[in-house]
């Protein structure tokens, strides 16, 4: 197995994530797509750390997971606040707000 296989898999996930962010209009699904992006990066880190025999990549993954947790916490808090304020989490609605 060459690391490129893993990178390709990561890229597939990344593509899915990007498509989700651009096409879906549900804020929560968009946030889940962001998680996909973060995970594809994680995969690259782990595969690269294995390929180069360095452990740094795995430490980075730990930090990325930390960041993902914080991002999810704050992001979902905002989603909840928005939902309470406007009663919807459809991005089209907020697009209209832009004026």
């Amino acid at each position, binding site marked *: 197995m060459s690391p490129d296989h893993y990178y390709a898999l990561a890229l597939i996930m990344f593509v899915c994530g990007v498509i989700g962010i651009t096409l879906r209009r549900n804020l929560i699904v968009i946030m889940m797509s962001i998680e996909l992006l973060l995970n594809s990066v994680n995969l690259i880190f782990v595969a690269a750390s294995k390929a180069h025999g360095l452990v740094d990549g795995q430490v980075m993954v*730990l930090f990325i*997971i*930390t960041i993902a*947790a*914080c991002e*999810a*916490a704050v992001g*979902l*808090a905002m989603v*909840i606040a928005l939902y309470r304020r406007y009663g919807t989490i459809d991005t089209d609605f907020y697009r209209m707000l832009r004026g």
Partner: protein
Amino acid sequence: MLVAAAVGFLLNVLSRFAGPRRPSKVKYESYECGVPTDVSKSGVRENMSVKYYVTALLFILFDIETVFLFLWAKIFSQLGWFGIVEVFIFLVVLLCGYVYVLKARALEWD
């Protein structure tokens, strides 16, 4: 050795398949889905308390902290006092957050 490690993964796979097999096997013996009963279809899923969200939120943040502490505990003997001081600072920062949470009465269930 390697055998033991390999066994680990094999078991993972095995019991993952063994787990679902049981209930589904039994499921075939039972009848098909019966008459649908009509139980409250009202919008119960709305107006949920935000408390549950706050609980889950604090859970993930403290979970991360636990993970870091596990890693620290594992190599504790090699780090010694250096590690203790390090983790102490880490915990003090987090305790600030904890105190804030308590002050904000985010953990009160009423």
